């Protein structure tokens, strides 16, 4: 009989063999057994429609045996006709009231169809017939666990384990049930047993570390997992689990070691690559994170989370063109998503495509009008847009601030003594080598320690960074806040008794200004760090500025009260490795070299047009632009084309990529005059140019960010480098370029002049900053 021989093969696991045997004896079409065997074989090969046809034929030829009917029911169900399937299963169950199989199949079908109530009912009927049916015990327990009913699940699973102690899934489910009944130590034991039985299943190990954590035995679990790796060094699972547990315990370097070993050991698995990538990204090991995310995306190309994160990591690496490519592709394959659009807006702005960036941010707002992130993206792109006014900017900032969540954490109990020693909190992700660090650290170091204590609330801490070390030394306490959500952060800050909180991050990368909406301190102040304009946040009480940054006529475009420092609003701390100032290059070159080493995001089409006009009016002159974005060839080509369109010969404009800081500063040795971009002016870049002996022609506007150069130049007595409008900017550049003797003399004395000016006078700045903070505090005490 071919049918029986075929079933024999099927039972031996050779479905294709069984099928070819059945096909070979096609002369026997009237035999229902052959159709039934064919149906079972096709079902096994996951071809439910064909199986259904064969099984229906078998039934119509008279084979109404319960197994055939049950197989038909299964085929009907898998082919999509659930009602018919369930009806057949019930019918078979009725015919054979002692057989538990049809009810089990019915239960599984209900469960697969997402109907847990019907499934549970059916499983209970199975267990009434056969209390030892393992699949039903495990599956019903699973449904109960999903409803958080641990006690009954626990009993069912204990029964199952009594029957079949070698079933890993039963032990694992028991572990989950015990977690629900608050018996984490026992849960951990059960999950450990599941791992012993099936050590390659990652899920058991991951539940195991969770149980150990709840049970408070994380250290023992780490040791156990290390031992498991020693015993089975080729199994990546214990390494993966250990890595994840170490990360949870905040031991990131060790976590990365373990996860990387797991990923190397199992290079084709997504899970280790994904976990490694996310820990690396959180640890700011961007290059490694990028490689891991790329690898994980290759292994699991359909995961949009991986690709979005890949894009953000590329942005943090300043590879904005690549990031934009990844994000655009993601939108193409997965459609528009507000979060992805926000990232895209930032990447686009950084490439100098300001109008497009603002458009993308506005599109994200359209898609998610109530969300905060798209508003933040708009606030981060608008300051670069040509023609932006203070009023438009303030309105956008207020819109964004209005959407931040707020929790009533209660009133502040800080002692209202106006003269007591104050605790100052610094909130920032950039307390390190970064414009924020260079411009604030000297001021913080020189605050009078008898009058002010400093606590750093740091995101993205960089342990070995030289400026981070200075902050650490100046502060009485350093707290890493990465793992705290906004409310936890605000609560912690209140526990620390912070009197005056200074935000040094705004809405930038790794910044936490949003937490200020919950209020961290009774007095909250905005200072450097994405301080491109007012915060727009009603909970920020004060804004540190100076008379050049915020003249009286611009006060109305700020939401805060102003703390105007008597000199500049920052104190520059120049690096010890800066090269010496050289002679004016124009003297040797016989032509003037203009330069701008600012980020391309600040270079708008109008800026390029204005620079082209300067180049036209100063014959033979050259322009050197230097920014990391020029490492991307299409971006550099776009800027070259823009100058060509303005009829500037290609050899007059030189585009350079980034370089190490000392070399970067050294390149000012080839620049005679810096041309500032607008509306977003240079900040630290202008200070560095001054330190290297090069003055900047600048055009201030209404935005705070448009007036940095003006502030720094005025602070060192160079207010004659500030233009009134674009025409004046061109005229000023032309006039300064014509006076080489004056330029050479200025350059020769500029470093000592800057060093002696308030811009670099840290003790004086520290006193002024202290006085401003004291004033803000006294106002709160008096209120």
């Amino acid at each position: 009989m071919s049918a029986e021989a075929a079933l024999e093969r099927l039972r031996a696991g050779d479905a294709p063999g069984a099928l070819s045997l059945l096909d070979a004896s096609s002369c026997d079409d009237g035999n229902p057994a052959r159709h039934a065997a064919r149906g079972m074989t096709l079902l096994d090969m996951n071809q439910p429609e064909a199986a259904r046809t064969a099984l229906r034929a078998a039934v119509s030829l008279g084979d109404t045996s319960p197994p055939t009917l049950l197989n038909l029911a299964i085929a009907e169900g898998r082919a999509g006709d659930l009602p018919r399937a369930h009806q057949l299963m019930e019918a078979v169950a009725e015919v054979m009231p002692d057989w538990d199989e049809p009810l089990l199949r019915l239960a599984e079908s209900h469960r697969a169809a997402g109907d847990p109530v019907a499934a549970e009912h059916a499983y209970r009927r199975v267990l009434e017939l056969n209390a030892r049916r393992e699949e039903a015990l495990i599956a019903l327990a699973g449904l109960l666990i999903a409803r958080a009913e641990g006690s009954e699940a626990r009993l069912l699973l204990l029964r199952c384990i009594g029957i079949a102690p070698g079933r890993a899934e039963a032990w694992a489910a028991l572990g989950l049930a015990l977690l629900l009944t608050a018996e984490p130590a026992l849960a951990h034991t059960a999950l450990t047993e599941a791992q012993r039985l099936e050590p390659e299943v990652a899920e058991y190990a991951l539940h195991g570390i969770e149980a150990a954590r709840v049970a408070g035995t994380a250290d023992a679990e780490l040791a156990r997992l290390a031992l498991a790796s020693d015993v089975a060094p080729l199994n990546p699972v214990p390494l993966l689990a250990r890595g994840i547990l170490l990360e949870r315990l905040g031991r990131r370097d060790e976590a990365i070691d373990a996860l990387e070993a797991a990923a190397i050991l199992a290079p084709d698995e997504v899970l280790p690559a994904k976990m490694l990538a996310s820990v690396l990204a959180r640890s700011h090991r961007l290059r490694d994170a990028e490689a891991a995310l790329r690898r994980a995306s290759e292994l699991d190309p359909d995961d949009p989370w991986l690709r979005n994160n890949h894009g953000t990591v590329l942005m943090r690496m300043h590879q904005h063109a690549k990031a934009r490519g990844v994000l655009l592709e993601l939108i193409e394959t997965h459609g528009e998503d507000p979060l992805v659009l926000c990232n895209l807006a930032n990447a686009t702005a950084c490439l100098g495509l300001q109008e497009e960036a603002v458009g993308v941010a506005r599109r994200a707002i359209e898609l998610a009008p109530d969300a905060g992130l798209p508003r933040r993206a708009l606030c981060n792109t608008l300051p670069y847009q040509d023609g932006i006014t203070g009023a438009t900017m303030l309105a956008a900032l207020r819109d964004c601030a209005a959407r931040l969540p707020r929790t009533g954490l209660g009133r502040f109990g800080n002692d209202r003594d106006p003269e007591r020693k104050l605790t100052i909190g610094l909130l920032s992700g950039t307390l390190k080598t970064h414009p924020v660090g260079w411009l604030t650290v000297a001021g913080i170091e020189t605050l009078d320690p008898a009058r002010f204590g400093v606590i750093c609330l740091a995101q993205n801490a960089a342990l070995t960074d030289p400026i981070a070390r200075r902050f650490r030394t100046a502060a009485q306490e350093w707290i890493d806040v990465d793992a705290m959500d906004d409310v936890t952060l605000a609560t912690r800050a209140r526990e620390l008794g912070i009197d005056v909180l200074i935000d040094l991050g705004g809405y930038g990368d790794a910044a936490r200004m949003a937490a200020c909406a919950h209020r961290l301190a009774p007095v909250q102040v905005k200072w450097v760090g994405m301080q491109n304009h007012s915060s727009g946040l009603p909970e920020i009480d004060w804004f540190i500025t100076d008379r050049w940054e915020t003249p009286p006529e611009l006060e109305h475009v700020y939401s805060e009260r102003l703390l105007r420092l008597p000199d500049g609003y920052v104190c520059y701390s120049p690096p010890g490795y800066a090269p010496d100032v050289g002679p004016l290059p124009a003297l040797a070159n016989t032509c003037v070299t203009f330069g701008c080493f600012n980020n391309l995001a600040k270079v708008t089409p109008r800026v390029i047009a204005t620079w082209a006009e300067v180049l036209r009016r100063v014959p033979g002159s050259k322009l050197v632009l230097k920014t990391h974005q020029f490492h991307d060839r299409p971006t550099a080509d776009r800027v070259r084309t823009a100058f060509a369109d303005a009829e500037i010969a290609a050899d007059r404009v030189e585009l350079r990529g980034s370089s190490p800081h000392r070399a970067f500063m050294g390149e000012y040795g080839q620049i005679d005059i810096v041309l500032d971009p607008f509306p977003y002016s240079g900040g630290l870049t202008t200070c560095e140019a001054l330190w290297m002996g090069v003055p900047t022609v600048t055009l201030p506007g209404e935005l705070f960010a448009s007036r940095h150069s003006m502030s720094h130049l005025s602070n060192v007595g160079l207010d004659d480098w500030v233009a009134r409008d674009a025409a004046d900017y061109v005229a000023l550049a032309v006039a300064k370029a014509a006076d080489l003797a004056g330029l050479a003399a200025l350059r020769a004395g500029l470093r000592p002049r800057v060093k002696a000016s308030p811009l670099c006078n840290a003790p004086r700045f520290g006193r002024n900053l202290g006085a401003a903070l004291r004033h803000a505090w006294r106002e709160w005490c008096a209120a």
Partner: protein
Amino acid sequence: MQKLYAAADAEALTDRAAQLVTAGRLGAARPLLAAAKRLAPGSIRLADISARLALRANMPDAATAEIDEAVETAPENAGLRKRRAELRWQAGDLEGAARDAAEAVVLDRTDPAAKALLGVLMLELGRTTDAVACLAEAFGSVPGNSGFAAALATAQETAGDPDAALATLLRCVEAAPGRIDPRNAAILLCVRRRDYRQAARLAEDTRRAGIADACSFGLLGHALSSLGQHIEAADAYAEALKLGPQDPYVRHLVAAAGIRPGAPRAPAEYLRAVFDGYATRFEQHLISLGYRMPGLFRAVLRQHPLIAAGERVGPVLDLGCGTGLVALAIADLPVGPLIGVDLAPRMLAEAKAKGLYDELREADVMDVLREREKPLPPLAGEAGAYPLILAADVFCYFGALADVFAAVHANLAPGGWLVCSVEELLPDRDGVIPGDNDGQWALQRQGRYAHSLAYLRDTATAAGFQVLRLDRETVRYEADSPVAGLLAVLQRVPHVG
């Protein structure tokens, strides 16, 4: 249920493990190495990587069996010999290490690293001439290798040829201008030779080369300050502080230069760093400076009533004993057992070599004095109390003296003596007493504190001492000028009745 399986092959795992060991990522390398060994048992290359890992983890014994087996399997493999030499060296087996290193040189005569290793081991074994020869060959073939340069310079200096040592370091600077360590080694060598001009020049070259390093700036400050250029020195110290704000050594130097408000005493790290780099030349230096304190202490102790009567006084605590100069000066007096306390291990090694102390303790003075509750050593007489405590030029590393006087007082037996010396705080040329502690004490540019006579007297009295003697003395001569000091004999008031 998703199962994860290893898919990497032995070679891939071995390569990655080797890279990770090189990168110092031992935690990641270890499991990969174990996995690779499971796939390729007995591999020579894996044994070598295990040995490298053991070296990096400072656990030489962990790889001993494996490397021995590998050397037996491949006796002609020079790399394995070199590796075993390093392991043996780390485990303290210098002779064994030297044998392996010599074998490695024979097996591969072109390998400068093997020669350098042998040279360093020769130096450790005290065979200076051989060391210089080996290291000169290694350095000659790779003059940009700062490790070879440092080792050769040390060997040359040990052989008594500091000129050659400096030349070696400068040649390395020329060959590898971007490396900081040969530059700092050269500057430090100049400072040690008291050639401050050359030191400052080299430090300035370093800055011009674009290297910003706390140590170079600190040494520049030291050199400039020694040349009397205090304002420029302060600038250099400020730069050093920016680069190493938490480094206690730098902080103390900077405080001494008057940039930051001074701490009430010098940090232990500073003392250890200064004196450990100094131990072997310390005595020579002090004697060349006309250091007078040991002799003055001897003269004072001879007037102690019991000592004068030939009775033994002890146990005696010698605080900040350094290389044991005071012990040497009083060796013939009936005092002892003598317990020396100092922070710097190399100073203590010099002291130990004198054989005059019954016990030497590497510890902070205050920590020892605060151990009052658990007396060390067990005493014959009154428990926990010394009849005599000596403190020659150690309180100059304390600003405020109240705490240390109170602690000494608590450690003295009733009637016991404290003999101590400090530098005296004197008004400057304009008649102003420096420092901001009401003229009581101030941190000076050399990193030591000076105290006024009145302050010493009042603080001692407040601590419960009777001042038996308080004299102005010259501590030593600097640039042929006397350095003013104070010598005090303070007595814990005896029990009455």
